């Protein structure tokens, strides 16, 4: 017992002495840092997600205080944080439109035809080594092994029935899933965007019919009927121009394949 006490005491005293020395040294070698850097750091979301492109929240706060970075880069904090940071830095808020991740693929296991049954490692990259692009016949489809879900720090990405789905409520738009997706399927869209075609297959309509029950066949119906001319069919797949879209949701109603999702 005494032996244990002695060991604890010796290490404790040693630690205390070193701590005291360091405390004195911290006073002697004190360096003034920009007070704004500290204030900015406290205003940030603190998730260290890297969505701003800097190494962690500390790195971004430093860059902001040095005037090297814009105030609206904190994706996890969104517009509120951008406003706070702008206030600290004394500049006008640029107002960051919140982005959310979106997976333009609806090829769930019920809808997409499989080329083969993949039983390898649970990793999209590994699966891409076999049979071209994925185990699904559609070469544009989401592989559905969840690299994006594992990259997400906010529990906003899940694999549902073989295809990645975004939980818009949890998503902060940091873009970690965008980087994690080996097929570059996931993209960021403005949160206000309510309609999006959830398909990226560029094959001709007849071919799409064969390999996927829900894929975009490029029938141009949405392009013709869109009241705002926001939809164009490029390379046999519908694309929405988010700057023109009025979010009326008409396209989602009329799409014969029900591929245009309405959030």
């Amino acid at each position, binding site marked *: 017992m005494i*032996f244990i006490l*002695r*060991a604890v005491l*010796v*290490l404790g005293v*040693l630690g205390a002495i*070193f701590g005291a020395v360091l405390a004195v*040294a911290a006073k002697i*070698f004190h*360096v003034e840092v920009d007070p704004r850097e500290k204030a900015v750091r406290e205003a940030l979301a603190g998730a260290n997600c890297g969505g701003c492109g800097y190494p962690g929240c500390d790195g971004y706060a430093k860059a902001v205080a040095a005037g090297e970075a814009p105030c609206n880069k904190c994706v996890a904090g969104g517009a509120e944080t951008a406003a706070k940071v702008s206030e600290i830095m004394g500049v006008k808020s640029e107002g960051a439109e919140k982005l959310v991740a979106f997976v333009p693929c609806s090829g769930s296991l019920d809808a997409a035809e499989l080329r083969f049954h993949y039983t390898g490692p649970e990793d999209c990259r590994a699966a891409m080594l076999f049979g071209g692009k994925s185990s699904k016949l559609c070469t544009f489809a989401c592989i559905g092994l969840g690299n994006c879900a594992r990259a997400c720090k906010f529990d906003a990405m899940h694999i549902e029935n073989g295809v990645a789905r975004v939980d818009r409520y949890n998503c902060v738009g940091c873009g970690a899933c965008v980087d994690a997706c080996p097929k570059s399927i996931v993209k960021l869209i403005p949160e206000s965007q309510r309609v999006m075609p959830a398909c990226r297959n560029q094959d001709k309509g007849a071919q799409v019919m064969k390999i996927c029950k829900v894929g975009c066949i490029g029938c141009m119906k949405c392009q013709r009927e869109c009241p705002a001319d926001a939809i164009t069919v490029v390379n046999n797949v519908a694309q929405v121009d988010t700057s023109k879209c009025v979010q009326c949701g008409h396209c989602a109603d009329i799409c014969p394949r029900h591929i245009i999702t309405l959030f």
Partner: protein
Amino acid sequence: MLTNILAISLGAILTNNFIFSQFLGCCPFLGCSSKVDTAAGMGLAVVFVMGLASAICWVIDTYILIPLGLAFLETLAFILVIAALVQLVEMFLKKSVPSLYSALGIYLPLITTNCAVLGVVLLNVQNNYNFIESVVYGVTGGLGFLLAIVLFASVRERIQFAEYPECFEGFPICLVSAGLVALAFMGFSGMKIF
């Protein structure tokens, strides 16, 4: 006495170089060797930490741990000393040489976990060195590290302009050249001092 010290120094710098023949401290060796200036700064910081750590650890070991029968706590106590020293060096550099501080970046606090530093203090105990020998071994071990990292940084600076297969780009070529420099140091290993 003097010959003994000379033998320890030459051994630590050349024949038993911490990096090239004992393979301790490879992390900062590879991470901080892209520029000669940074490498020299890192090397000097390690010399300082190693020398001071050897001295303090020897005192703590001989006058506190061994008399109290707590020699089994050596590793723990030594890590404590090293961590405190590294913090001290970090504060000092931040104040006096901010450019070096930012150039060393994350590798500076990582000296704490540089196995060469812990290695040198544990080897001091293992070899039963006295105070002077310990300090000499610590400082010269650090000098050996400095020599190795500066040499290797100059090699890497030249590699930038060399033509090598594209697949070796980045770390592969760096590891290959580290191996070659280590091979050159093997030449010392046959040397017998006194």
